[in-house]
C-alpha cells in the first residue's frame, strides 16, 4: 500500500526527517508515537506531500508519488484521507458542506455529495447537525467532522495527525471511539495515526513506530513494543500504561 524509502526533510540546518523507511500494508493500522518535535507530523504530512520532502521515495499503491506533478498528486490525495490536529474545517461552510466538499472534486453532484456526507456524518454521530455551521461545534465534534470529511472520500489510506491533541480530555474519548469504530468497520482502509494516546494505539494499531529525532527508533506490534520496549520512548510509554 505504502512504501517509504530514505525520506529526508530538514529546515535549514534543522534535520527533521533523517532517512525514514516505512512500509504499510493494505488495511494495516499504524500508530506513530514519539515526543513532541521528533518529526511525527512532518513525516505524516510528507506522505501526501503536504510538506514536500527534500529527498526519498514514496510509493502509494505501487505508484511513486514523490515525483508526481501537482495535478497528478491532487488525484492521489483524493485517495488519501487526512485528519488534522486542528481539524482544519472550512469555517464558511456548514458541517455537511465541509464533508461534501471533497466529493465535488471527485465529480459528485452536490446532491450526491450531500447524501454521502450525511451518511458519513451518521458514522461519526453528527448527522442531525449536518446543516450547522462548524463554528458552533465543540472541538470533539469538529474533529469528528474532520474524520467524516476524510472517510467520505472512501480513501485507501487515512492519515491522522494527532487527532486528539487539541481536544479537551473529556472529548478525546468520543473521537477515539469513533476512530476505533471506523477501524473496525473499514478493514480495507489503511490508517497511519500520529498520536500520544498509547492505550488507543495499543488497542487499535497493528503496529507501533516510535520516532525520535527524525528516525524510527523502534517498531513492532503494540504488545511487543509496549510490553518489552527497547527504546527509551517505548519505555516511557510503557510507564504511562503502567501508571494508568
Amino acid at each position, binding site marked *: 500500500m505504502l512504501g517509504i524509502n530514505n525520506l529526508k526533510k530538514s529546515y535549514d540546518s534543522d534535520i527533521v526527517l533523517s532517512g525514514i523507511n516505512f512500509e504499510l500494508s493494505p488495511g494495516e493500522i499504524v500508530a506513530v508515537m514519539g515526543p513532541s518535535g521528533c518529526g511525527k507530523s512532518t513525516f505524516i504530512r510528507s506522505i*501526501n506531500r*503536504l510538506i514536500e520532502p527534500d529527498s526519498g521515495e514514496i510509493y502509494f499503491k505501487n505508484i511513486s508519488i514523490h515525483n508526481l506533478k*501537482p*495535478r497528478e498528486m*491532487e*488525484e*492521489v*490525495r*483524493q485517495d*488519501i484521507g*487526512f485528519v*488534522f490536529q*486542528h*481539524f*482544519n*474545517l*472550512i*469555517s*464558511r*461552510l*456548514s458541517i455537511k*458542506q465541509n464533508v*461534501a*466538499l*471533497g466529493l*465535488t*472534486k*471527485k465529480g459528485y453532484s*452536490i446532491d450526491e455529495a450531500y447524501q454521502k456526507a450525511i451518511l458519513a456524518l451518521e458514522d461519526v454521530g453528527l448527522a442531525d447537525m449536518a*446543516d450547522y*455551521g462548524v463554528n458552533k461545534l465543540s472541538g470533539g465534534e469538529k474533529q469528528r467532522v474532520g474524520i467524516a*470529511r476524510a472517510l467520505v*472520500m472512501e480513501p485507501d489510506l487515512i492519515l491522522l495527525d494527532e487527532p486528539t491533541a487539541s481536544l479537551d480530555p473529556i472529548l478525546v474519548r468520543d473521537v477515539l471511539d469513533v476512530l476505533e469504530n471506523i477501524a473496525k468497520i473499514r478493514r480495507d482502509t489503511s490508517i497511519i495515526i500520529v498520536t500520544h494516546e498509547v492505550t488507543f494505539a495499543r488497542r487499535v494499531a497493528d503496529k507501533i513506530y516510535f520516532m525520535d529525532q527524525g528516525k524510527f527508533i523502534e517498531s513492532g506490534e503494540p504488545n511487543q513494543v509496549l510490553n518489552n520496549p527497547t527504546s527509551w520512548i517505548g519505555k516511557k510509554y510503557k510507564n504511562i500504561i503502567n501508571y494508568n
Partner: protein
Amino acid sequence: MFLRKMNFRKDIIILIIASILLGSGLVYVGGYLTDNYFMNMVSGIIGDYGEYDLLFTISSDQEEIAINQIKKTASETLPGSKFKTGPKVAGSSNYLLKIPDKFKNEEIYVNLGKYFSDIPGLMSKTIMTEPRLSVRGFRGNTRAFIRPLFEEIEGIYFLYPTSDGLDIIVEKPELLPEVKKKIAVVLDNYSMLEIRYPLNQHPEDLSGKQKDVIDLIKNDTKNVINVTDNSDSERVSLLTSLKQMKTFLLSYASKVIINDIDSSQDILIGSRLLAMTSEGAYLELKVIENQDNHITTIIQQGDIQNVISKEVEVFYTDTKGNQSDKLGNGIINNPRHDLAVTLASLNEITPSLNGFIAQSEQLVEFSDKIGDDLANVNQGLGQLAKTSENLSSSLSEWQEQGLSTFLGELLGILDDIKINAGDISDIQKDLIQTSNKLKEGAGLIEEKIIYVPRNNGIYQQLFDLKDVFLQLSSGLDENYDLVASRLQDMDPVISSIDSWQNKINSLLKVEKTLNNGADWENVDSIIAEIDQTASVLDTDQLQESLTSVQDILIELKTTQLPVVLNQLTYIQNSLPDLKEEEIIETLNLIDSYIAGEVIPGDQIQLLIEGDYNNKQVVNNIKTVIQNPAVNYMEMDAGLLQPNPRGEIFNILSQVRAVISMIIAFIFTLFLMIMDQSLIISVLRLNNRHGYIYGFLSGGFIFSMICLISQLEFPYLNLQTEFIIGGILGIIITMLSAMLNPVNREEWEAGVALGFSPAEIMHEIIIPSGKPGLLYLLNYPKVIFKRK
C-alpha cells in the same frame, strides 16, 4: 512560478483587467462629475472653456438679422461650424460659434475679422479658443524674430499674430503649463534695448548709427539683433491725427489775445481768466499760450455773437473762479467769423469777376477800336507828313488847295487820335482795377487760408483759387504795363497833338494873317515836329500787344473764370458748421486722451540675447549716439499675458486631475485591500514573492488606470505613477495578513482533499475573503454558495 503552478493566472489577469477598466471608468466618471460641477459653475460666470471659439455680442434689436448673417458667413467660410445662443445682457445678445478643427489654423484666425466684418448690429467679436496663451508688447520687429523660436516648442497647435503680439493655441489644456514655461524661457532669454530720440528728432544716417551701435556692443553681448521698425505705429498715427485735429479746432476756436502786459510769468498754461466785453458780458477764458508777455486764450464760456467791440477787459480769477484784479486789455479773435467774412469777400469777387468778363469783352471791342483809331492816327500822321511836304511848297499852293479846309480835317483827325488814346487810358484803368481786385481776393485767401485744415479738400481748392487770382492779376499787370508803355509812347504824340492843335489853330489864324504877315517859323517847327512824331509812334507793336491781351481775356472768360466761380460755390457749400461749445468740448476730449502722450522721434531697437551688463553697454552706445537728449530703455522682449479664463480653467483642470488622481489612488487602494491583499496573503502563505507581486500589481493597476483615463496629473508621468502604485502594493503586502488573512489550515484542508490551488482559491479562500471585485468575479465559480 507559483502563480503559474497554481493555475490562477487567468483569474488574476481577468481581475486586473477588470480592476483597471473599472478604475478608469470611475476616474472618468469622477473627472466628468468634477468637470460638470466646477466647469458649469465657472462657465456660467466666464463662459464655456475651449468648447467655442468665437463670441459675438450683438445688439438685441438686430439680433435676428445678425445671427442669420453670421450663420450665412460661417456656412460659407467655415462650413461645419456649430452655434449656440448665449445669455442676453442689457440689450445685447451673445452668440457662440465653434469652428471645426480643420479650420483652426493661422490663416483662418487672421482673417476672422474680415469674414465677420460686415455683420449688422455686431457690437464686438472675441476669439475665445482655448487653451490659449497671449504674448504682447513686442517692439519693432521682435515678433518676426521670436515667432520661429515659439514654433519650435512642442505642444503648440498654431499661432496667429495680434496687434502687437502673438496668440498661441496649445494642443491640450494639460500642456498649457509646460508650453507657458517654455515660452517664458524664450522671452527671458532676450531683452529689448531701445534708443529713443526725442520728439521729432530724426538723426541723419540712422541706419549707419544702428550698424555702428551693433558693431560696438557685439562683443559685450551674446547676440544682438536689429529689430528697429521705423514705420509709425497706429498709435503714433492716431496721436498725430489728434494733434492735427486739435490744431485745426484751435484755429477755429474763438480767442482773446492779450498783448502788452507788464509780466505774464505768473500766468500758467491752462489757468482761468475772465474777460468783460464792452456790453458788460463775461467770457471765461483758458490760457493756451503765454510767450513774451503775449497771452493767447480760448473762450471756454460766454456768447460773443452780439459783441460789437472786439476789445475786452481781462481779469484774473480768484480761487472760486470769481473776478479778481485786472490783467489788461484783450482783443477778441473769432476765426470763424473772419472766415465767414472771407467767404463773403470771396463772394463779392464773383460779381466783380462777372463784371470783369463784361469788361474784357469791352476791352476786346476797345482793342478793335484802338486798331481803327491807330489806323486813323497813322493815316492822319501820314497826311501830316504829306502836309508837311506840302508845307515845303509855297503858301500860294496852300491857298490854291484850301489850307483852311485841310487844317480843319487835320484837327478832326487829331481829335479822333485823342479820343482813341483816351479809350486806351480807360482800358488801362480797368486793367488796374481788375488786377487790384484779383490781388485783394488772393490776399484775403492768403490771410484766411491758415484757418483751414490742410487735410481738408477746401484748403487745396482755396490755394488753387489764390494762384488763379494771382496768375490773372499778373497777366493783367503785364498787359497793363504794356498798355502803360504804349500810352507813355503816346503821351508825346498827344502832347504833340495838343501842340499841333494849338499851332494848327494858330495856322488857321495864319490863314487870316497871311495877308498880315505870317509867322513862318512856327510853320517850320510844326512841320519838323510832325516828322519826328510820326517816326516815334510804333502803332503795330501796340496793336499786337492789345491782341495778346484780348487772347488772355478770351481764355479767362471761357475757361478759368468758370472754374473759379465753381470753386467759390463749392467752398461756400462745404465749410464746417461748428459751435463754440462743440469746439471746446472736443478740444477737452482730445486733451484728456493725448495727455502725456508723446509722438516718438526716431529710435533704434535692439534685441539682445542672454544676460549683459546694461550699464556698460549703454555707456558704450552713448559714445556713438552723442546726444544727451536720447533715452535708453531696457525692457522685456515680450510680455506673457495672464489669461484669466485660461488660468481659471487650468486650475479647474488641475482640480479635476487631483480629484481624478485621488479617485484612482483610492480605488487602487481599495482593490489592493479587498482583492490583491488576498492573493498576496496566499503567496506569502506559500512562502512566495508576495512583495514583488504586491509592487507589480499595485504599480500596474495604478499606472494603467491613470493611463487609460488619460489622467494628466502635474509632475507625474507613467513611471512615477507606477512607482507610487508599487509602493502602495508593498505597503499592502506588509499589511496583507491583517487586511485579508488566509487561514493556513483551510488551505491545507483543501490541498489534503486533492484540490488544486486555483480550486482552493475559488471555493475556500476567496469566498472567505473580503467582498471585493475578486469576490464578485469568483462568485459564479463557487460550488457551495451558502452554508
